[in-house]
Every structure is written in C-alpha cells, then in structure tokens.
C-alpha cells in the first residue's frame, strides 16, 4: 500500500480535479446563474443576499458541501504546488521541509475555512 504512495497521491489529484469541476459548477449555478435555474422552474430569490446565505448555512447538506469543496480544493491546489516546488528544488532535505510545510499549511487553511460554516451552522 505504502509502496504505491505517489500513485495514490496522483490518482487523488485526478479525482479531486473532477470533483472540483462538479462542486464548482453547483456553486456557480446556485450563486450566480439563478436565471438558468429559473428556466428549469427552480426559483432562488437573491442567493447572494444575507438572508439566503444564513438560510443555507443552517442546512447540514450545505455545510457538508462546503467542507468537502474546501477539502478538495486544498488538496488539489497544495499537492499541485508541492509538485512544482519539488521539481524546482531537487534535494531530499528540502523535500521534507516542503512536505511538512504544505501539510501544515493545508491543516491551518482547512481549520480556518471550516470555522465559519461550522459556526454559522451551530448558530
């Protein structure tokens, strides 16, 4: 299992890329393309207003959606950044530093990113 670590990392990069496209599509349609939804009979009134946002924040499904979306974006972006940095700094010592820095950055960003939707969900 560990012997194929980089294959799993790369496969996860592919999967999160596809999931980001899907989640971002949902986000864009809901938040910015309500006219298109209206064409299909789904009415969302002012999705970017404060009231609509608070209403969505109270739903567990939207909480899960945004936490997953954040996780996918962070993994995809930071793993891509890691790949670029490792290519430019071919040294075992620097690699270890980059790996841990990326993991730390990811955890901090995830904690900060999930704080707001979780706090809003809890009211």
């Amino acid at each position, binding site marked *: 299992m560990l*012997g194929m670590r980089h294959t799993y990392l790369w496969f996860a990069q592919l999967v999160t890329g596809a999931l980001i496209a899907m989640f971002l599509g949902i986000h864009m349609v809901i938040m910015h393309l309500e006219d298109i939804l209206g064409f299909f009979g789904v009415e969302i009134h002012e999705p970017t207003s404060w009231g609509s946002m608070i209403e969505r924040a109270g739903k567990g499904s939207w909480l899960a959606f945004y936490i997953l979306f954040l996780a996918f974006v962070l993994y995809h972006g930071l793993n891509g950044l890691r790949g670029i940095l490792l290519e430019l700094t071919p040294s075992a010592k620097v690699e270890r530093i980059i790996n841990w820095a990326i993991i730390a950055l990811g955890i901090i960003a995830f904690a900060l990113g999930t704080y707001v939707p979780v706090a809003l969900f809890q009211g």
Partner: protein
Amino acid sequence: MSTEKGKKLKFKVQRFNPEEDQSPYLQEFIVPVTRGMTVLDALFYIKENLDSSLSFRSSCRMAICGSCGMLINNYPYLACHTQIEELKADTLEIRSLPNFALIKDLVPNILPMGLKHRSIKPFIIRPDTQEMENPTAEFIQKPRELNSFLQFSYCVKCGICVSSCPTSASDKLFLGPQALTQCYRYCADTRDSGAKDRFPVVDTDHGVWHCHLAGACSQACPKGLDPALGIQLLKRLLVAKALGISKKQPPAPIVPPPTVSKPKIAVPEFTVTPAQKET
C-alpha cells in the same frame, strides 16, 4: 541552401576545454558541403582538415549506436542521421545536448541517464532463474503481445529525448523519458514479472508522476519512438496496480518442444551437370 559542387557553409561549433575554458564558446569553420553530406561528415571534415582537437562522439554512422546526438540549429538530432541539405540553412550552429553536463566540445556526460536506465532494471526478470541461466527453450509470446511494447525496444539510448524534455531541464533527479519508457517496455513484456521491482523506482516524487506530458521527447526521438505514450501507459499500469485491477498473470511459459517437424525442403538438382558445363 543548395549543395551544388563548390558550395561552402559556415559551421559554428561549440568548443569547451575544461582545463582551459571557463565556459563554452562557438568557433567558426567553413566547410565545403556536397549533396548527401551529413552533419557528422562535416564534423569529420573539420577534425581531419581544420582542427584535429575537436571532440565529438560517433560510432556506427547509421543511426544505430546513438552516439552522435547533438543540438543542431537548436534542435536535437543524431548528426549521422541529419543531412545538411535537409536543414535548409546557410549557417549551422552545433552544440552539445542540453540537460547533460558538458565533458568537452560536443561530448555530453550521459552517465546520469545510464544510471537512471540501470535503476529501472532493464532486463527480463522471472522467478525461474534456472531457466533464465540455462535456457532450454523459448518463451511464448504472441505477435499482439510483442507489438504492445515493440516500438519501445528500438531505443538506442542516444539521450535526445532527455535533452528535449522540459521536466529534465528543471528537475535533475527526474528519471527522464528514456528510463521511464524502458520501464514500461519491460513491464509490458509478457515474459517478464519484474514490475514489483521496478514500480518502487518510478513511483517517486521524481519518477513517472513528474512527467508533464509535453511530448517533446516523442517529437525529437530520431528512431520514431513515442516515449510520451510509453510514460502514459506506464502510469496506467501503476494506477491499475494501485487500485487492484491489474491483470494478474504469471510470466509467459516456455514453448513446449515441437512434436512434429516439417522436413527440410530438398536442395534442387543441378540443371547443368559439371560434364555439360565443360563442354
């Protein structure tokens, strides 16, 4: 450019003597060129008539040995496989292959490529070592199975793919298209079962997953191989293995000895006997 008799061409050839020079420089030579003359012929003309200290590698002069890879007008070619006429240029600038350290003049140090090639174990690996050491018969391989990797076995290890690879330019630890393609060549061979020994070598931060699929290796390969395809197929093998959906089959067995053999076709009788010939 035409190569009519008496035509002369300017060659700007990279020179570098590590004992005297700080950095490489270009030296100009005027070389009489003829139709069909290759860049390697011109380099030999320079060495034999103008400057005997010029250093470059060559051996077979027929694109088999892969020795004479060099950068000709900013594009990597085999010098013996490149006719001056086809370049359609009035001046030829010849440098050593990029992405390799320079030893002297046009001689790159291709040792790192050789070591990377060796690291992927470029030979058939099987559990039946007795049969490998003392072969008694051939291993079965269908034409379709052979075609799955045949083109990759034409690699002459010239280093042109590595010299054209943008990832090799930025990441000196990157295994490179040559080694990765050869890894696929042996893993795809049905006679081989050494994937478990090779996958840990290529499944690293500087292995197969760092290929950006620029495709420059496939465009530059003088033997017409498609290393970018080989690398993609290697990725497929790795993902299939990681997901547990790879084909699990033992290496090809040996061919059973033939039970029936056709008799050899008889040698035709002489239509003219020696006696008739004398008369």
